[in-house]
């Protein structure tokens, strides 16, 4: 339980978290939770509760929440939300807000994506591919100029440029 007497409340915080004004229409119906697979996790992802935390501006509590990261990205909640809140997008927006405020939240996979372009060894799976009769793919590492261009593009994004020490070298 969050003790609202004790909690520090920042009334306009939702504007920093979620670009969409529609979050204010969330009326706590819980439809999003009723269809959410991750609401069965321990601890449960309760997107309605997260919407409340955002609207109330419970900064410290929201920074500590791990549950937005257990979403399976099925978007069932978006389908059923009667108020157009887009709960799935809200969950992603909360993750991004956490990342902006706490660099330990940056997914380590970003470094891999910056260096190689993929989350799996796509360009090194030659034997596995040959075994089923397939050749090499035109992956981005085959064209060093293109890989450089891709990295230059990523360097122009906030998450990479603000944390460039993670990506260089």
């Amino acid at each position, binding site marked *: 339980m969050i003790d609202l007497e004790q909690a520090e409340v920042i009334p306009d915080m939702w504007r920093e978290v979620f*670009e969409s004004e529609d979050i204010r229409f969330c009326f706590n119906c819980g439809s999003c939770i009723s269809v959410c*697979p*991750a609401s*069965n*996790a*321990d601890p449960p992802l309760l997107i309605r509760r997260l919407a409340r935390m955002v609207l109330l501006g419970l900064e410290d509590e929201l920074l500590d929440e*791990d*549950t937005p*990261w*257990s*979403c*399976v*990205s*099925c*978007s*069932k909640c*978006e*389908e059923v939300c009667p108020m157009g809140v887009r709960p799935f997008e809200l969950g*992603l*927006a909360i*993750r*991004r807000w956490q*990342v902006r405020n706490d660099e330990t939240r940056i*997914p380590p*996979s*970003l470094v891999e*994506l910056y260096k190689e*372009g*993929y*989350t*799996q*060894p*796509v360009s*090194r*799976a030659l034997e*596995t*591919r040959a*075994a*089923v*009769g*397939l050749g090499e*793919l*035109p*992956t*981005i590492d*085959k*064209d060093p100029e*293109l*890989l450089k*261009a*891709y990295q*230059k*593009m*990523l*360097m*122009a*994004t*906030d*998450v*990479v440029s603000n944390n460039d020490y993670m990506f260089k070298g």
Partner: protein
Amino acid sequence: MSKYGLFLGCNTPALRPDVEHGIRYSMEKLGVDLVDLPGYVCCPAFGTFPSSDEYAQLAVNAWNLSLAEEQGVNLAVQCGSCYSSLRMGSHIMEEAPKREKVNEILAKGGKHYQGKARPHHMLDILYNEVGVDRIQGKLQRRLDGLRAIVQFPCHTLYPSDVVGFEPDKGPPHVLTDLLEALGASVEHYSLEHQCCGGAGGFHKADSGAAHGFLKSKLDAIAAETEADLIVVSCITCLMWMDNQQKTLSEGNGHSYSLPVFDLNQLLALCLGAPPEHVAAISTVPRERITDRFK
């Protein structure tokens, strides 16, 4: 002959290239020309840039979309989350001001996205473009006598106004219709629409719940159907439902071994492809299905 840029993502070409071969083989036989997208990168997956920086997400989406656009084609995608990431990204970038802002970032990499190239899921192309009749007309072999259950790829269903391609409202049936066209009979069960549990963030957060999802599904399938196989159309569903049956069987007394196939693998087999090319990699043995095609 229609033409698409084949967007393979990361898991399929690296870990399950037999599925890739099944896609290439079956689509070509059905008159869909798939071209490679040299220099494509991860979609980006929801747990990466979409979870850290919206414009980085859109820029990477746009990078991939622009590669198809340069060749004047739309994208064909099998992986559910690749499809959803690219589809939602292209939807957001329909708004010109957003797209312009993305293009400023994209320009640093020498690319530009006009907003023309759009991603399509493999099931969409098969059902709405190729069509059940044309598929049936080309089959060399059939799945007659086999009973299947399906796992609908959630990323192709919701939100329906952005990613959907089912022909009508109500329960989804594109995957079942395609599978029945191959001759299999599709059985239904109570937990048919439950999540497979395979999403990365979810099983990292609570591996017990993720395995519980699969276990309860498999138990319901066993109790309520006589299914010989599971059919999916998403690489995450495929790998999770296939690989984790072994984990569930360990120390359980009960052994789970229901073969799992991607629809395009079965399609390729029915169109004459050799199993060792299009259905070679699995944890659960599937010879009892693939032997029919030797």
